[in-house]
């Protein structure tokens, strides 16, 4: 179904085009945070962490409670990110590590940890239900969600969308510095690429892995606090975002942080452009059309890490 325009002018077409770009960027930015959370855990632990949707929504509920008590979104944002990191670390240290210790060989090695994260997702969502109930809550955005006016027309891009973009850009910058410029970043990368060599070099890979889970949890916490103000808060509120983050991560090759962000942006653009120019109904299918196309053309993802030459 193609949208009908009553004699569209260049101006309105242009506005629509620019709006589509901006909304693509801001939704892509949120997918990127989820994709990063998934890639960070995958790199360090070789597990797709389905519990991430639960972790992120739990931290958003914590943020919600902070807002209820103090009225400050910003304080809530900080608390959510920090508690996301703590929850991530705790899950790895007291849940995943014992599972890995017990499950050592056979086909169950690949499956057990992933199934465990699925179980954990259910448990976290149930706990949320017990504490906060199952009804929809909402978090008010800290800045205006009213669209900017461009050439006399209100577009679907607001101060809040801008905030999301800036926040995610800052988060990416910090992550890049951490990974590329610090010793901790080198330990994180080495442990991800080759746990055995890292270990033989004296790096405490288990601790580094827990740190990876913490960073992933923080990223998910940020995603929740940025995503929920446009929607409602309920125990399953982040499930769809997890799927999109997962798709973005796979498009990006699952290994690369840059790939996760690029995959998320590709997804953001594909979804926003297909819904703007073709049909609103394409919101969900587009993600999977892109996924299948990428897997057909380049199964290892678009930005899979370069392999070494020869052996």
């Amino acid at each position, binding site marked *: 179904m193609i949208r009908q325009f009553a004699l569209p002018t260049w101006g309105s077409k242009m506005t629509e085009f620019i709006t589509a770009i901006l909304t693509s960027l801001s939704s892509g930015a949120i997918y990127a945070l989820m994709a990063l959370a998934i890639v960070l855990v995958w790199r360090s632990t070789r597990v797709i962490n389905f519990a991430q949707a639960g972790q992120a929504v739990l931290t958003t509920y914590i943020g919600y409670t902070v807002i209820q008590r103090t009225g400050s979104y910003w304080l809530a944002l900080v608390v959510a990110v920090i508690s996301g990191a703590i929850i991530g670390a705790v899950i790895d240290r007291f849940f995943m590590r014992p599972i890995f210790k017990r499950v050592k060989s056979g086909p169950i090695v690949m499956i057990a940890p992933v199934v465990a994260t699925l179980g954990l997702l259910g448990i976290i969502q149930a706990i949320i239900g017990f504490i906060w109930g199952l009804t929809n809550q909402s978090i008010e955005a800290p800045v205006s969600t009213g669209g900017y006016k461009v050439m006399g027309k209100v577009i679907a891009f607001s101060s809040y969308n801008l905030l999301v973009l800036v926040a995610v850009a800052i988060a990416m910058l910090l992550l890049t510095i951490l990974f590329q410029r610090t010793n901790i970043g*080198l330990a994180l990368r080495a442990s991800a690429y080759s746990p*055995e*060599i890292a270990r033989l*070099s004296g790096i405490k890979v288990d601790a580094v892995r827990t740190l990876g889970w913490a960073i992933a949890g923080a990223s998910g916490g940020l995603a929740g606090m940025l995503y929920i103000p446009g929607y409602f808060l309920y125990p399953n509120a982040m499930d769809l975002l997890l799927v999109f983050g997962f798709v973005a991560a796979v498009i990006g090759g699952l290994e690369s942080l840059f790939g996760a962000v690029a995959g998320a942006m590709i997804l953001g653009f594909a979804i926003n452009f297909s819904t703007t120019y073709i049909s609103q109904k394409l919101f969900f299918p587009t993600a999977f059309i892109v996924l299948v196309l990428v897997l057909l053309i380049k199964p290892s993802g678009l930005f899979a890490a370069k*392999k070494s030459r020869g052996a």
Partner: protein
Amino acid sequence: MTLIVEGLTIDHGAIRAINNVSFKVPQGQLAAIIGANGAGKTTLLRTLSGLKDATSGSASWNGVSILGKRAEDLARSGIMHVSDGKSVIAELSVKDNLALTGLWQKDKKAVTEATNEVIELFPILGQRLSQSAGSLSGGERQMLAIGRALIARPKLLLLDEPSLGLAPLIVEQIFQTIKSFVKKMDLTVVLVEQNAMGALKIADEGIVLNLGSVVAVDSAEKLLNDPAVRSAYLGF
């Protein structure tokens, strides 16, 4: 400081990889463990460096048991294992690979010094610092892996097949380099090799493994001249 292995037995699932193996390597000595593919050499080294659990027996370094300890803790205590297959991280630069063993050392000046010494020992690494380790040749990778271990200032070096897959000329060069820095740094070395000839030539002592058991222990020189060892492992 002596490496003492006594009655060590290691299982690979249902398969006995190492059976009741005993040997000693005194401080400053280079012991070559030779034997055919599947003799259990690599398994033995992986156990000594904490990557694999032993089934029974004991192993100690400097009077302290090293079994059941974590690989990263053993590495920090001066037992460095250079695993086979050119153990470098291909995705990281040469510089970052070398930096790994310096990350946890408190004395950063000593790390810089050790790094400079390694680059002096393997000048080619100095020219390739910003290149990815994956772009190096096999010999260069082996130098990088050894260099990384040396930066940790190890006391006991466990080398697994440094000659694997290298051209004969490079093998010769690697063995000679090993011999030179071992003496200079007063290292104790366990060198596991299929290239028995090359290994015995630079070793003080040789240990011959066959199907997980020690079949001969003697000075490297004697083993080189032992007709039985020559026909079985040296091929002439």
